[in-house]
């Protein structure tokens, strides 16, 4: 089962929930945590994994053989990203604009274009006290997170529970990370910003057809409009974490709820049970 932990707004406690959930389940199940927040991956701070392997993520960018090139301009014509420009006696390649679709090399009539890998990030894996850990890191200065996310997502198979830490927001990196999940937990806080961004996140997750539930963090701050919204939209609030300076203090030091306040393990266990119930029920009704 794949559980995505997302949030429209950043800094609502998404990583804290994902890592605490993983730690609360690891003694009874096989758990794998994928950190798909490749721009700012933080799960490693909380899980402190031993990294045992690493692989570069590369985009295949064009390399033009000027001996074969006739400067016909076909490659620049088919490139949707303006990553190639053909001058009368030269071809300019702008690798940072290339999405690696392969159209230029395939369509070159002279077979003058080969491809070479350009590293834009890494995928790392290891073990964190029994949790299988995988994370992606986008290289600083690189723009495109989705190819790195796709590579991390390739590890979302097998048995057991896969928990994915999703980047904040609602745009393409979020969609890439969330799609194909069985359930999406949306972590938010009861403030106007929290509500505004939750509404956007719900629209995104619904468009993908994935069932979702809310974790309300820092309950007690702000107002009760998030609860009103969830009631109206029929979205279950599956866990409430109070505003608590002790939790904030632990968080600041990179300590999860499961570790720093072990009484929370039971709540996260129950959270998992209700997610499982929803997913099983949905699978049964899809089969019917």
């Amino acid at each position: 089962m794949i559980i995505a932990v997302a949030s429209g707004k950043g800094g609502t406690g998404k990583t804290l929930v994902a890592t605490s959930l993983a730690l609360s389940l690891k003694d009874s199940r096989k758990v794998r945590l994928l950190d798909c927040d490749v721009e700012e991956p933080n799960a490693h701070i909380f899980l402190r994994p031993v990294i045992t392997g690493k692989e570069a993520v590369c985009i295949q960018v064009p390399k033009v053989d000027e001996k074969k090139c006739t400067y016909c301009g076909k490659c620049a014509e088919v490139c949707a990203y303006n990553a190639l420009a053909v001058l009368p006696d030269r071809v300019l390649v702008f690798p940072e604009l290339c999405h690696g679709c392969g159209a230029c090399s395939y369509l070159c009539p002279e077979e003058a274009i080969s491809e070479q890998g350009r590293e834009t990030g890494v995928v790392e894996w290891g073990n964190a006290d029994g949790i299988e850990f995988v994370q992606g890191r986008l290289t600083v200065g690189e723009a495109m997170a989705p190819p790195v996310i796709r590579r991390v997502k390739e590890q979302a198979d097998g048995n057991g529970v896969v928990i994915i830490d999703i980047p904040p927001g609602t745009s393409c990196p979020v969609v890439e990370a969330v799609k194909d999940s069985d359930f999406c937990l949306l972590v938010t806080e009861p403030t106007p910003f929290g509500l505004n961004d939750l509404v956007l996140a719900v629209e995104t997750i619904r468009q993908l057809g994935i069932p979702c539930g809310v974790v309300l963090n820092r309950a007690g701050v702000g107002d009760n409009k998030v609860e009103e919204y969830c009631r109206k939209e029929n979205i279950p609030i599956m866990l409430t974490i109070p505003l608590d300076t002790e939790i904030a203090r632990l968080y600041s030091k990179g300590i999860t709820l499961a570790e720093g306040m072990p009484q929370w393990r039971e709540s996260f266990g129950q959270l998992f049970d209700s997610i499982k119930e929803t997913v099983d029920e949905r699978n049964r009704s899809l089969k019917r």
Partner: protein
Amino acid sequence: MREIVVLSGKGGTGKTSIVGSLAALAKDKVLADCDVDAADLHLLLKPSLKEKTEFWSGQTAVIDEEKCTRCGLCQELCRFDAIKDYTVDPVACEGCGFCFHICPVDAIAMEENLSGHWFIADTKYGPLVHARLGIAQENSGKLVAQVRQKARQIAQERNLDYILSDGPLGIGCPVISSLSGANAALLVTEPTLSGIHDLERVLGVCRHFGVTAEVCINKYDLNEENTRRIEGYCADQGISVAARIPFDNAVTEAMVRGKPVVEYASGRVSQEIEKLWDGISGIRS
């Protein structure tokens, strides 16, 4: 004219609350909300809409079922796994057009995407340019570029001193788009290990694009040991710490009332943000 972009890498550090207050303090500026993905600044600034424009960007492949001979070449060549059972998944499609070019029976068309909207609004603090990326859309970087271009145009037309922009989270495409060519970046962080980790990465992006940065430590008293670590790190990097803002529930209370905190409370948070603006309004490019 000086363009100052406020970034944080990590979410929830108080970036937008601080931008809202700087908006109330700064004179003669245009505001740009470059967080086109989950914009919140409008909740503090209460804009009245003047202009709404559609943002068309990128394309999606569409297969004509009647023409398609099910040869499968497009499925085989698509590197984004966007074609299954001779149908394009619009979410996975990157709009590269490879399939369109290679289809032997011309059964594939490329259709323009309505990727979002951008807006020009008036606020009591000055003009605001903001945007809304469509749900699950790509090209956030291009929409950010559009917001900045419009903000710059307004600043020039009205001879304004500042463009103050609320930047996106992370370090990827929209952040790079909000940052390149700006005069200065203000990096809002918090004294947590995640905050420090993310600050280092977003500072790396500023360096990569040659933009001068200063740091603001928000909620500094939540963990003073970590605050000292950030100060030590900034000193090593030759970056100045422009402000240390204490934690105060007044920030959330102000947000609930839809006001910048400097207009809601007069305590230390507001005093520190005033000092912050005095400091950064002179950051040299």
